[in-house]
């Protein structure tokens, strides 16, 4: 019996068939697969089809029986031709079958952006590719693309998320529509829009996002995330404060409306008078207090002790960012009533400082002077705010 190429990692068996699987060799292939199953008792089987060029009905039946014996069986790296066979026969609806990534070259392409994770290239007049240098970024690329896709079909204005591709010479990339747009940050810095105009445009898009209902299992639940932040602080806060903080967050009702999760000037673009959202990896669902908390942090909270941070991050002064935050909050609440605005701001601050304190401690903040000052500032805010607030909803 010919042995079939394979690898084993933990309980995960990967099989690498080559060439044709048809009536002439299907029985032999099945025997080889059965031998591997008996030898390793795998929990899951991945059939890597990179070198599979054809499969007949006899081959399909082998896969069907394997899937029955080991329900966690999937096919990856399937060529376009072989994928068509799986699609026509309905296999693609029955089990996970992933097409091979398209391979593209970015050699000679214009670099139009550079971030912490990689570069953005323009590959033709209508599309860009976001290339991630870390090969382990693949799950993250897929996650972001799925979120963007879910938002896109719900009508949230954003760039079209196309496919995930392999980059010649290494790495993976995500292909998006090219937007001919400027970020709100740039428009404000260049003086093309005023703080009032930016606040108005960004809140009107935010309201559209917040009015969009999502299927809860397609995006993370923000309240669960915030509860994790609070739990992390149990060791670092007085017991009564921790109990109050935790119960405040736990009492926020479930909410299946979409949130962006990282909504600030750099993540909104203007194209032909229309506001578009970018960077969809933080999309989630939940009560708007969580969004307001993240906006408070971006404009005020993170830079509270070091005002230069907001200039480094958004390119605007701490004063301008603060003005933008207050205008945005007033527009979001649809009121100029200072007392009402201050009340909701306090609620946003409670969630915001929960996040900042956790983040600072996790980044070794207890062992640096700067970190200790931030943590002390969070405690000061909790001391002041927690006794005043009885619910985070507004």
């Amino acid at each position: 019996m010919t042995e079939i190429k394979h690898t084993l990692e933990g309980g995960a068996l990967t099989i690498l068939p080559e060439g044709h699987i048809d009536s002439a060799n299907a029985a032999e292939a099945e025997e080889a697969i059965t031998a591997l199953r008996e030898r390793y008792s795998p929990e899951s089987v991945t059939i890597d089809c990179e070198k599979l060029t054809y499969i007949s009905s006899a081959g399909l039946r082998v896969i069907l029986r394997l899937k029955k014996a080991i329900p966690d069986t999937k096919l990856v790296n399937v060529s376009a031709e072989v994928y068509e066979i799986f699609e026509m026969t309905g296999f693609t609806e029955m089990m996970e079958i992933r097409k091979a990534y398209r391979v593209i070259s970015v050699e000679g392409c214009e670099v139009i952006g550079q971030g912490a994770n990689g570069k953005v290239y323009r590959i033709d007049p209508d599309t860009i590719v976001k290339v991630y240098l870390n090969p382990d970024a693949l799950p993250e690329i897929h996650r972001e693309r799925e979120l963007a896709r879910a938002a896109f079909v719900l009508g949230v204005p954003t760039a079209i998320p196309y496919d995930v591709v392999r980059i010649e010479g290494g790495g993976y990339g995500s292909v998006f529509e090219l937007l001919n747009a400027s970020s709100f940050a740039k428009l404000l810095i260049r003086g093309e829009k005023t703080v009032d105009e930016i606040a108005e445009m960004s809140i009107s898009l935010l309201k559209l996002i917040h009015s969009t209902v999502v299927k809860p299992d397609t995006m993370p639940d923000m309240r669960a995330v915030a509860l994790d932040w609070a739990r992390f602080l149990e060791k670092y806060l007085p017991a009564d404060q921790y109990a109050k903080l935790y119960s405040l967050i736990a009492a926020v009702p479930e909410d299946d409306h979409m949130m962006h999760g990282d909504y600030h000037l750099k993540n909104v673009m203007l194209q032909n008078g229309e506001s578009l959202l970018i960077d969809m990896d933080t999309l989630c669902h939940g009560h708007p207090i969580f969004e307001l908390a993240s906006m408070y942090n971006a404009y005020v909270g993170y830079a509270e002790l070091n005002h230069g941070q907001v200039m480094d991050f958004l390119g605007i002064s701490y004063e301008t960012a603060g003005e933008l935050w207050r205008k945005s909050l007033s527009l979001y609440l649809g009121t100029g009533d200072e007392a009402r605005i201050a009340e909701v701001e306090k609620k946003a601050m409670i969630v915001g400082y929960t996040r900042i304190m956790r983040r600072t401690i996790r980044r070794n903040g207890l062992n640096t002077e700067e970190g200790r000052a931030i943590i002390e500032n969070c405690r000061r805010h909790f001391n002041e705010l927690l006794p005043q607030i009885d619910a985070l909803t507004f």
Partner: protein
Amino acid sequence: MTINTTKNGTELCLAPEGRLDTVTAPELEQAINENLEGVTELTLDFAGLDYISSAGLRVLLSAQKKMNAAGKMTVRNVNETISEIFEVTGFCDILTIE
């Protein structure tokens, strides 16, 4: 952009030509909105359409939402490029494509 418009009682057919992008999408949106009164069957004929951007897709999405309430919408004569865009974006599950 040229949009050939045929209205026949409750049936409306729009055939945009060229590229449906951020510049031309508002024109199609306007053509739909101006003619939609009383329409129960909306057909978009894409035989002359070469490309569609996200702005164009959003116009389709909003037309589809309106027609869900008012009757039905069909997209026909879609070329391969656009068909691929419908597929990767998941629009093929939302639209009726002939």
